[in-house]
């Protein structure tokens, strides 16, 4: 994956923070948004820019669950596993989703369209069970509704 594409943006973020360490997490967000994951190149580039050992950049990035080193799908589905969602049947939602996409939590479909991730809490407890697909919120889910949502997303891509 060519670093060139987001180099400009990373440089801008580094500069905004005077090349200090606090630029790291904003840069990781920027890189991941561009590519859907973090790469060796990005880690090296940031280590150099911030004058940090590569291992430190890697260790910080891997600490946070939203950063990933594996290519995610076009749609990242985050299922909430918090207690309020669990009480309202999040397990059935996850099962329906896994069955519909034929992948487990943490996996990406072969066509690189969908990734399923589980998260500790999305702060949507009044809409439990809930999930997010990229930045969109989906609440009060039922297994049937999940199937419809996936179908709609699959269709959307065909039309485009």
């Amino acid at each position: 994956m060519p670093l060139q594409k987001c180099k400009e943006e990373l440089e801008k973020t580094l500069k905004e923070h005077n090349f200090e360490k606090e630029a790291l997490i904003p840069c990781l967000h920027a890189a991941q948004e561009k590519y859907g994951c973090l790469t060796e190149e990005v880690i090296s580039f940031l280590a150099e820019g911030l004058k940090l050992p590569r291992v430190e950049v890697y260790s910080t990035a891997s600490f946070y669950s939203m950063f990933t080193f594996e290519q995610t799908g076009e749609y990242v589905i985050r299922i909430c596993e918090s207690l309020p969602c669990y009480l309202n049947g999040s397990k059935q939602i996850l099962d329906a989703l896994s069955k519909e996409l034929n992948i487990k939590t943490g996996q990406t479909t072969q066509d690189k369209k969908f990734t399923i991730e589980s998260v500790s809490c999305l702060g949507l407890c009044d809409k439990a069970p809930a999930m997010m697909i990229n930045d969109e919120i989906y609440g009060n889910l039922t297994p049937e509704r999940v199937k419809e949502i996936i179908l709609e997303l699959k269709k959307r891509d065909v039309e485009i």
Partner: protein
Amino acid sequence: MMKILLKNINKDGYKPDVQSYLKEHGYQALKKALETSPEKVIDEVKKSNLVGRGGAAFPTGLKWELARKASDSPKYVVCNADEGEPGTFKDRLILEKDPHLLIEAMTICGYTIGAETGFIYIRGEYPKAYKFLSEAVKDAERNNYLGKNVLRSTFSFKINLYRGAGAYVCGEETALLDSLEGKKGQSRVKPPFPTFAGYKDKPTVLNNVETFSNVPSIILNGGEWFSKIGSPLSPGTKMYCISGDVNKPGVYELPTNVTLRELIEKYGGGVHGKLKAVLPGGTSSNFLLAKDLDIEMDYPSVQKAGSMLGSGAVIVVNDKHCMVDVAKRCAEFFDYESCGKCSPCREGTKRTREILGNITRGDGELSDLELLKELQEVMYDTSRCGLGQAALNPIRSAIEKFTDEFKEHITQKKCPLGICPMEVT
């Protein structure tokens, strides 16, 4: 009903922009504060008896006073918008629907303690809040409510936004500060407290979104006015989040003398099914039972009842749920979210998950229950931060209040509700 935090949001057609905010006396408190001395502002906040709404209930006025008196500089204002306690979804409302309320409050704090820089640490799972806040900050800068010489005074203040990346522990203040500095979000040893050595080891006021958002009304109406609302033990209103097995889950802003029963039955629309247990302060609190429902929902009263108000996340569990299974879900959460820095929490959360897993598979022993109680004590005494100290609260209280249910899983290898897998025979 008295509204302080949702007074604007509840109005029809209210938008998260500066024009809407100005129509509702927005930025008048900042103007008033700038016309008086920082000491006078601290005085009003102290008189209000406002305490931190993130869970720790530390007196806000005292915190500001300590930061103002701290000799080191520069000083910082940090807002904890990393709302991550399961069952909590109140700060999201302010961040997305009334961002200027928070900006005004933080600016007042900056003026009061002598800080020129503020940060809002927004959880990564709230992309919309980040977007709306970014726009609001720019809007405030354009209108001179932020930036150089705020409202043509000699005071300048800047707010930087920072996005978290999915770590629950960053809701803990010192872990948040480390994350803000670009490190792994792991807690620091306290003392020193952030008030003296916070962001970059400089004096820092760190408050929750809800705590800050009370301040403009306190400045406009006076500390005494605020101190008379709700329970005298911890006055004001609180944004209670009701979720789980209730008919009308949601955020309800109510005076702190509201009872748990009123919250669940009147506002939450009653329990969906029959009430079995309730967590009054998220998954870090102790379970309460139906007999406890008449307590008032202020910090000291909930503590007296044997639990804690925390962030005000009321999670209701009905009798269709198995308490061993519920305890296991809580344990899985803390195991996943432990930052790994200190051994009591790192190992303790892992073992708890394993032990509860064994019990749900029919592979538990009666001595496990004693072991878990002991582990709770060790973790409470020796964990570095609140995460580990509180992690076993729901588990221990579930064991103590539903002992027979746990014992049945162990001795008869049976889940009375047929929820736990019970694979071992």
